[in-house]
């Protein structure tokens, strides 16, 4: 059955992507971050004699391996700055601050961090600043809480050689990241999701090859054209292939083992996937006829169960496997 398209109801849902990257540190980064934990700032000397702070393992100019660690000062000079009136989540300070690149005394390159001061009029290039250490330090760049204004004169100290050895060196970091989105599935998938809430399964037909895609994504991958007509399919369908799941997924309250199947709904030219229940897991088979089951108030089928019909003939679904 073909229905005319309805005006799209735009669906939106919050989507949070969160990942704690666990990263190992090489010898130079390990020494630098272990140093910060112990209130010591290390740089690395290049083949040409420049001191890079923060230190890197390979020379950005020559690609030489760098291991010659030196200790630099905890005071330094601002080389450029930018006033941040509205701090964002995760930034070093939650009150307005200046982003600064600071060349620490003894270093030839600058380190990016925050400067805690009163306003843009209180910052200038060439300004003297000093490290403010975080109270709790774990071996991370945030062990420097921020910089603060300092009235010292530029240090004459030459960087002192350092072994880079610390007790209980930090060998890795966990780089937490969180990004927040408001996800919208688009027109075709919105129509599909909205129809599911009404206990209907709606696919879309390609105007060129006439295949019916379920779930529809708005385009025919064979023809590269937009799918147009909405076509109601199912409700019943045929299991084309399946697997038995023996591993419990996080936050999933389903008894193991269970069956996850590809199901070709009647009238569809593409199988979708769903969970099979209402039958012992070891009796699920290719060709089994199933229908969707919605739970109370559910916007989508919770699972598919056997209809009780005889199994479908292999030839009727072999193209859809």
């Amino acid at each position: 059955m073909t229905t005319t398209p309805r005006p799209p109801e735009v669906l939106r849902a919050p989507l949070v992507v969160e990942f704690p990257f666990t990263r190992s540190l090489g010898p130079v980064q390990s020494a630098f971050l272990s140093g910060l934990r112990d209130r010591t700032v290390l740089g690395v000397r290049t083949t040409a004699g420049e001191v890079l702070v923060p230190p890197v393992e390979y020379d950005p100019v020559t690609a030489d391996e760098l291991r010659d660690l030196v200790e630099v000062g905890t005071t330094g000079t601002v080389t450029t700055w930018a006033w941040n009136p509205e701090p964002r989540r995760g930034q070093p300070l939650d009150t307005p601050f200046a982003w600064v690149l600071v060349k620490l005394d003894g270093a030839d390159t600058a380190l990016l961090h925050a400067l805690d001061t009163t306003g843009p009029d209180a910052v200038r290039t060439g300004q003297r600043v000093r490290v403010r250490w975080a109270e709790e330090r774990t071996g991370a760049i945030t062990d420097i809480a921020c910089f603060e204004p300092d009235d010292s004169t530029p240090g004459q100290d030459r960087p002192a050689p350092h072994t880079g050895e610390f007790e209980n060196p930090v060998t890795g970091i966990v780089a937490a990241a969180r990004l927040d989105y408001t996800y919208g599935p688009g027109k075709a998938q919105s129509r599909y999701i909205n129809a599911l809430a009404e206990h209907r399964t709606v696919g879309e037909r390609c105007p060129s090859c006439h295949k019916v895609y379920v779930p529809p994504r708005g385009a025919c991958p064979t023809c590269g054209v937009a799918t147009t007509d909405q076509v109601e399919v199912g409700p019943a369908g045929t299991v084309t292939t399946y697997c038995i799941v023996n591993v419990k997924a996080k936050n999933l309250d389903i008894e193991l083992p269970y069956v996850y199947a590809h199901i070709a709904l009647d009238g569809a030219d593409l199988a979708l996937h769903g969970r099979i229940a209402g039958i012992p897991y070891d009796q699920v088979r290719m060709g089994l006829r199933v229908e969707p089951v919605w739970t109370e108030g559910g916007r989508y089928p919770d699972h598919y169960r056997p209809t009780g019909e005889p199994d479908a003939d292999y030839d009727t679904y072999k193209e859809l496997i």
Partner: protein
Amino acid sequence: MRPPIRDIAVVAFGQTDHRRTTDEQSEVEMLMPVLHQVLDATGLRTSDIGFTCSGSSDYLAGRAFSFTMALDGVGAWPPISESHVEMDGAWALYEAWTKLLTGEADTALVYAYGKSSPGSVRDVLTRQLDPYYVAPLWPDSVALAALQARALIDAGDTDEPALAGVAARSRRSAESNPHAQLRGGDVPHGDYIVHPLRTGDCPPIGDGAAAVILAAGDRARELCERPAWIRGVDHRIEAHSLGVRDLTDSPSARLAAENAGAFERPVDTAELHAPFTSQEVVLRKALRLGDDVRVNPSGGALAANPVMAAGLIRIGEAAARIHRGESRRALAHATSGPCLQQNLVAVLEDSAQETR
């Protein structure tokens, strides 16, 4: 530089209208009309295309392998020759150009898309930074550009009124660009977002897509009345640590331009991917663009900055001016990373090498 071993041209360019949000459309739905625009312009069908390459970003989409969702739009079944760069589409065009240079294909479809509206692009872009020393501080894209702007002001290369002038000129130029998100001289320059950059110094946040078709030799002449021949493309990168770089200069952009042949003869047009006003100052100097060069007649990234497509659009806009007979030799530039860390330069001309 040596001329390319094969004549390859941009023969079609299409882009969406760039908007603050396209929340009623999926990526592939946003992209599809643009793909058909370039296919219709050349009379090609997807099955005629020799190589397909795209640029987009999972971080922007908030999903792993998000580019595979867009592949339905190019008819990826039966199997096609396809590739993807997790970068701006300008780099996808570079890959397609090299593919055509090998002679393995005569036509290529290049597309790029990005929706900044579902997330916070300022925060998303922090995830491309060095994860040990920089990313944990969450310095957003405007903050890093502002550090560069301050360095330029301190060096005497520009000042705040001059930056406001760049913004006003860009958005006045965008007056004649129906796809632009911001246009006209009355866009307010606004308050400081991160001092010294104001709202007007920063690109609009929006969604959009673009597509280009490349063709080689006689195929290009068949498909387009006045092909925009690619005389050279090159891309270069600088050290990731901001404190190591001279933020007032862009040696990587200069080297890319030199290798692309940009300095061999003057260009009349330059489409620069400078999302921040201050970056145009850096690029004009690095690319040796005089006042006689028409810079960003489209309005540039200050008028529309669909992330991952804005660089490809620069190449497309430069090519379209050649298609229309408004330029004879144009430079197109794309950037990626903080403070112009990576730069790509393409040089386009209205005649192929053998006809000159």
